[in-house]
């Protein structure tokens, strides 16, 4: 195991963990319910560790991308349903991320939102065209580490650590009305969806193949998932906690992504604000790249086309055309006038509906001796996998009624 590579991999996972949906829902959850939803973040984070590790292991051992194996395992019709569902979910998520980048650029420069959206797409396309896979992943992930300012701000603000610690214990705040309880449940479902977004495992496992993982990388995969995603989740929890501390008592609803950047500003002034905006810019920009590439990977792997950014763009031409086209469609959605928060809400709603279709095949593949040989799921991975699959299924069933009952978390 190469420790430099491992450290970089972990740091990349930390910097790339938070995306626009986690930013929005963590900030809102903290201001609305204090520390009471921290346990949902922790619960969902163990889920993404479990399924992320499985997807990396499948890539390393079966040596084939998840979507190829998924089609082989599920058959053409069900495989195609899974493909279409994940394409729609990831595209909406990608549009939300692009909108988020445009808002942050607008806050940084003062230029019009639509101009920043177009500029963001051009820069994102140029990044993927110019840089090979590892550089793309590392540059956004490592620059996303500016997000650490949220954690440092939390320490500086000297929060009630005991209350934060108690937030890790599953709970429902006492004294909620039926309406507030429904809203609390919606936030819980939305956080599970945001942490377990389908694109994350598609991108992660495809990245494993881009980097030519093999049996020797299994330990690195496991450590990266557990430590990287774990520390990344602590960042999201820091945003939630800052929000509970700063926004909740003064009844500020930090719906706009930019509002969260005020947390470090209150701790460190203008420098804190700038670092927070830069961290958000690279973290959300990285998520835009991941969602777009995840869709292009899925299409190409399903149909057996050349794919991957370890190749030059013209060496995998249909893959290249796919990700450029997907970015342009995402830009079209952003420029259509749908606001970012609505896109975020639709992204988490569609994603939670797709999650069972994403994670069941993953579970079946990772348990299949034919593909995995001696590295099929053990009892711990299988037990956790099925527990999380049931939880995801229940969340998916509850998602649509909760969305309409709460008008997308508006109470």
């Amino acid at each position: 195991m190469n420790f430099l590579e491992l450290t970089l991999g972990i740091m990349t996972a930390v910097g790339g963990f938070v995306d626009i949906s986690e930013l929005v829902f963590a900030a809102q959850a903290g201001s609305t319910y204090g520390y009471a939803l921290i346990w949902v973040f922790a619960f969902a984070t163990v889920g993404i560790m479990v399924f992320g590790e499985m997807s990396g292991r499948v890539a390393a051992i079966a040596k084939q991308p998840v979507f190829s194996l998924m089609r082989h395992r599920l058959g053409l019709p069900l495989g195609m349903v899974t493909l279409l569902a994940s394409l729609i979910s990831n595209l909406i998520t990608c549009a939300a991320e692009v909108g988020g980048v445009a808002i942050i650029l607008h806050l940084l420069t003062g230029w019009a939102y639509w101009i920043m959206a177009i500029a963001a797409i051009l820069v994102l396309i140029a990044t993927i065209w110019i840089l090979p896979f590892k550089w793309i992943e590392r540059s956004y992930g490592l620059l996303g580490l500016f997000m650490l300012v949220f954690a440092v701000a939390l320490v500086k603000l000297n929060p009630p650590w005991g209350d934060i610690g108690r937030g890790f214990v599953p709970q429902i705040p006492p004294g909620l009305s039926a309406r507030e309880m429904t809203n609390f449940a919606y936030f819980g479902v939305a956080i599970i969806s945001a942490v377990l977004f389908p694109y994350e495992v598609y991108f992660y496992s495809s990245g494993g193949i881009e980097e030519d993982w093999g049996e020797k990388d299994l330990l690195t995969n496991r450590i990266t998932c557990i430590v990287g995603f774990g520390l990344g989740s602590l960042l999201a929890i820091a945003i939630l906690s800052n929000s509970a501390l700063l926004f909740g008592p003064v009844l500020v609803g930090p719906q706009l992504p930019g509002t969260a950047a005020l947390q470090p500003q209150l701790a460190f002034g203008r420098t804190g604000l700038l670092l927070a905006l830069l961290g958000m810019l690279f973290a959300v920009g990285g998520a835009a790249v991941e969602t777009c590439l995840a869709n292009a990977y899925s299409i190409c792997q399903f149909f057996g086309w050349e794919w991957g950014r370890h190749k030059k763009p013209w060496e995998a031409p249909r893959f290249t055309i796919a990700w450029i086209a997907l970015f342009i469609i995402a830009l079209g959605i952003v420029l259509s006038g749908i606001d970012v928060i609505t896109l975020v809400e639709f992204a988490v709603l569609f994603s939670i509906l797709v999650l069972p279709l994403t994670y069941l095949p993953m579970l079946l593949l990772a348990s299949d001796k034919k593909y995995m040989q001696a590295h099929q799921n053990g009892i711990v991975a299988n037990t956790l996998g099925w527990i999380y699959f049931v939880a995801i299924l229940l969340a998916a069933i509850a998602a649509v009624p909760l969305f309409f009952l709460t008008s997308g978390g508006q109470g």
Partner: protein
Amino acid sequence: MKPEQDIQLLGGLLDLPVIDRDHRYCGAVDDIELEGIGGNTRVKALIVGPGGYRGRLPRWAYAIVRQIAGNHVTHVPWEVIEEIGSAVILRVTADEFGLHRVENRARALLPKAGAL
């Protein structure tokens, strides 16, 4: 697994990715062409291309695929298969059977500069 070994045809082959001698992806096993009858049935070729979805998707879904991608197919003779595992590996290049026709057309649309 070598191609001469008995395999469970439908479960073992259908929908596997196809990779050529140069390790390039060149489609998926969309259908299988058989020859012979009864106990002498054997695989004649793999069918690669959206036309292979016919009969495997509901009629309305196939009509949509056909509108978008056409119904062309390429027959890959059984004899050119090197290995079957989590993918079908060919002992020939994709271009020998025209499996990269669309890929080559798409390549012509892209500039070939500027990437590290």
